């Protein structure tokens, strides 16, 4: 047997889970909580309680209402109906200050720190300790050092926040929360941008807080984490509470089924393996400074090639470099066997006939203030005229796209910011697929959209591959990778560490390579 490494601890078997603390006296509870924005109901009849000393995971798909519930419990948002109880007594809802005084603290998904201020200034922002009209620097320093040590953050009190790594920022945020009294600590997707080691460190801190009697509410959609950490799990779907159960009583596949509301096999189209493979794209020894080291692989016609790995492993950067969206330091790209050289995306569009669906829909995919048609035609606008835009041709093409992608736009002049996430994603898909590409890179294609649209997108990807296009799926949702891809490349800290196919495409195998438990496969150079 090997000695225990942190990564193996991470994957430790379910039987070792800690026991659930006594449930009889919940410290915090939601009672019949409803929340609606205008005519849109986002939470309905939520009843759940949280006990001191427990780690309670809240899971659900994007849009299930997790974040809204956390905001209600922490006083940021007021429920439309229902109550929040603290130690059995109703509290004034929508009162952030009041909740904070009770010791209820929310660590936001997007961290809420003032980037230009120092660690010390952030720790006591709004809670400054004063001596007469002056700041009591000495006392804050002492206290600051104490709380940083408690969360195990080795950072300089005077360092500005923007100099810290994301994981350090997270720890500072937690330290800030515990600088005051804390009884309930709510963490919203805290590991989204952490490495394996940093995640493990965070888990230890969370567990030590739980041992000290703090109730931990842990929002995540990463099942491995939830199984590893939580005493109890609450599952939300479409704004309703599906179930609250002991973590030990739920299997991962059951959690998924309850989260998405249908069986897994109904989610994905049948995998049809491509015929005898013709290689469309070959990448040799590609490197991107500080993101990708020496990546080589091939992509076949009609193939769906998955890219798995933890966030920050370099998957997005690799593909951005291939497509000329980012500078590569070294490497060669061959299209249909011929060397192809270019430095920008517009050349890549022409030479590789490759398009990229960005993971960041609003930041990189769509101009949210433009209407859907203008967004649709922005990529490859040249096909509607090199100088003047043929507006009739543009309109007709968009009309076809609306039908093909089943985009719901009631008012054509409406900015896309007013469309639902699913519809925005369809506009974005229409935008990149309108160019009739040979190679399509889908980066997190289903982030932030509802299950129905997800299934549509899975079928779309499968049909693109069936038409003979080469599809790449970069995704952090393992289910997606496993359910869709013919072959999976795993990346870990800037390198390709494995290429899996057939039955080797499973959650365990991918995670073992992604976390580095299994050492990299050796690749014979092509």
């Amino acid at each position: 047997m090997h000695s225990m490494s942190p990564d193996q601890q991470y994957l430790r078997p379910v039987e070792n889970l800690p026991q659930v603390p006594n449930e009889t006296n919940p410290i915090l509870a939601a009672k019949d909580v409803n929340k609606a924005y205008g005519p849109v109901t986002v939470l309905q009849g939520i009843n759940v309680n949280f006990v001191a000393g427990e780690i309670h995971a809240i899971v659900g798909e994007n849009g299930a209402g997790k974040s809204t519930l956390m905001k209600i419990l922490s006083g940021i948002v007021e429920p439309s109906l229902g109550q929040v109880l603290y130690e059995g007594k109703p509290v004034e809802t929508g009162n952030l200050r009041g909740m904070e005084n009770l010791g209820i603290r929310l660590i936001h998904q997007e961290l809420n720190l003032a980037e230009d201020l120092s660690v010390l200034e952030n720790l006591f922002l709004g809670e400054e300790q004063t001596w007469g009209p002056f700041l009591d620097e000495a006392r804050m320093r002492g206290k600051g050092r104490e709380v940083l040590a408690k969360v195990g953050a080795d950072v300089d009190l005077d360092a500005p926040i923007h100099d810290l790594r994301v994981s350090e920022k997270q720890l500072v945020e937690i330290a800030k929360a515990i600088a005051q009294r804390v009884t309930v600590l709510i963490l919203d997707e805290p590991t989204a941008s952490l490495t394996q080691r940093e995640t493990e460190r965070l888990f230890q801190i969370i567990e030590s807080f739980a041992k000290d009697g703090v109730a931990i509410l842990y929002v995540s959609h990463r099942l491995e984490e939830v199984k590893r950490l939580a005493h109890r799990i609450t599952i939300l779907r479409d704004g309703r509470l599906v179930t609250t159960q002991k973590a030990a009583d739920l299997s991962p596949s059951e959690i998924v089924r309850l989260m998405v509301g249908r069986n897994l096999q109904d989610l994905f189209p049948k995998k049809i393996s491509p015929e005898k493979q013709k290689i469309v794209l070959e990448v040799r020894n590609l490197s991107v400074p500080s993101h990708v080291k020496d990546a080589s692989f091939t992509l076949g016609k009609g193939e769906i090639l998955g890219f798995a790995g933890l966030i920050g492993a370099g998957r997005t950067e690799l593909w951005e470099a291939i497509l000329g969206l980012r500078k590569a330091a070294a490497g060669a790209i061959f299209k249909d066997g011929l060397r192809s050289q270019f430095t920008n995306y517009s050349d890549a569009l022409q030479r590789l006939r490759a398009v990229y669906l960005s993971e960041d829909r609003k930041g990189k995919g769509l101009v949210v203030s433009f209407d859907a048609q203008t967004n649709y035609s922005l990529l490859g606008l040249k096909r509607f005229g090199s100088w003047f835009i043929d507006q009739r041709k543009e309109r007709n093409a968009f009309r076809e796209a609306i039908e093909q992608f089943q985009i719901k736009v009631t008012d054509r002049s409406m900015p896309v910011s007013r469309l639902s996430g699913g519809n925005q994603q369809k506009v974005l898909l229409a935008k990149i697929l309108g160019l009739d590409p040979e190679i399509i890179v889908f980066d997190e294609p289903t982030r932030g959209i509802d299950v129905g649209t997800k299934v549509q997108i899975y079928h779309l990807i499968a049909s693109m591959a069936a038409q003979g296009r080469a599809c790449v799926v970069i995704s952090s949702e393992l289910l997606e990778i496993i359910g869709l891809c013919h072959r999976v490349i795993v990346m870990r800290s800037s390198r390709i560490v494995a290429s899996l196919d057939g039955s080797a495409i499973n959650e365990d195998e991918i995670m073992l390579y992604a976390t580095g438990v299994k050492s990299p496969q050796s690749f014979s150079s092509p």
Partner: protein
Amino acid sequence: MKSAELVESTSHQQRGESHLRMIGKWARDAGPLIALLLLVILGLLLNPSFLSWNNLSNVLTRSAFIGIISVGGTFVIVTGQIDLSVGAMAAFIASLMIIVMNQFANAGWSLPLAVGVGMLIGLIVGLLSGLVNGLLATKGKIDSFIVTLGTMGIFRSLVIFVANGGTLTLNSNIREAYRPVFYESWLNIPIPVWVLALVSVVGAVVLAKTRFGRYCRAVGSNAEVAHYSAIRVNQIRVIAFVVQGFCVALATLLYVPRLGSASSSTGVLWELEAITAVVVGGTALRGGSGRVSGSILGALILTLIGNMLNLTNIISVYLNGAVQGIIILGAALLQRSSRTR
């Protein structure tokens, strides 16, 4: 909030919102025109000679400088940048033109040739100045505000240097030959007004109907999205500055024959007037949306106000700058309130 966005609103609600937006859009589009009409009516009430052909053609001719510059300014601002150097650049181009034209005349060139080549050089200097601004802002990765603040200082002090602290004047024979460009009329309409009309029509068509125009709006709205839409973002930004340089040169070609001289006071505060015209015309100062027609209306509004202060005694002419300042603040406030709604 996030989850609320994800769910579709009912079509009924969308329809109501779209009506509201239509009204808002209409008010934004028609706002500058209504303001102009109100000003004309006010001017008429204050002084009947206001609407005389003489005065109107005077106002239009004067607005040509700022109008033409503001067409270029619209492109720069729509791409999310700003050009503070236009006034100093105009003075710089004017100085060089006067120097070379005088040289050519002294060297015995025919006067029309000297004027023609001088004008050509003026245009080239304008294009190059715009190119320098654009390259510094993109390749140099300096904010355009800082870039043009710097080049503004450079242009301005070069003018003082070549004029030796005084005034550069066109030789009288050259001036005679060049004079018609500003003072002549065609079909009873002064040449500068024709140029203004031409520049605004071309500018409006380019911004609204061409690929380049759409790319300008995309870059100004969200440069990242533009980058991921295979748009050469830096190229678009540089071209916008070159367009601005060309427009400044064009305005200067019309301006030089008016006085026949250039000095340290030439083009002072033109940048303020041009930016004011663009913003009053409804172009978002943060970039992403704008109309050339609005900028022209803005330039007319500014010139009209100056003209009215001249013709009436209600507010001192010395307060012209203050009135312009109030107008730009008012326009910015209006833009903000229409955005937050």
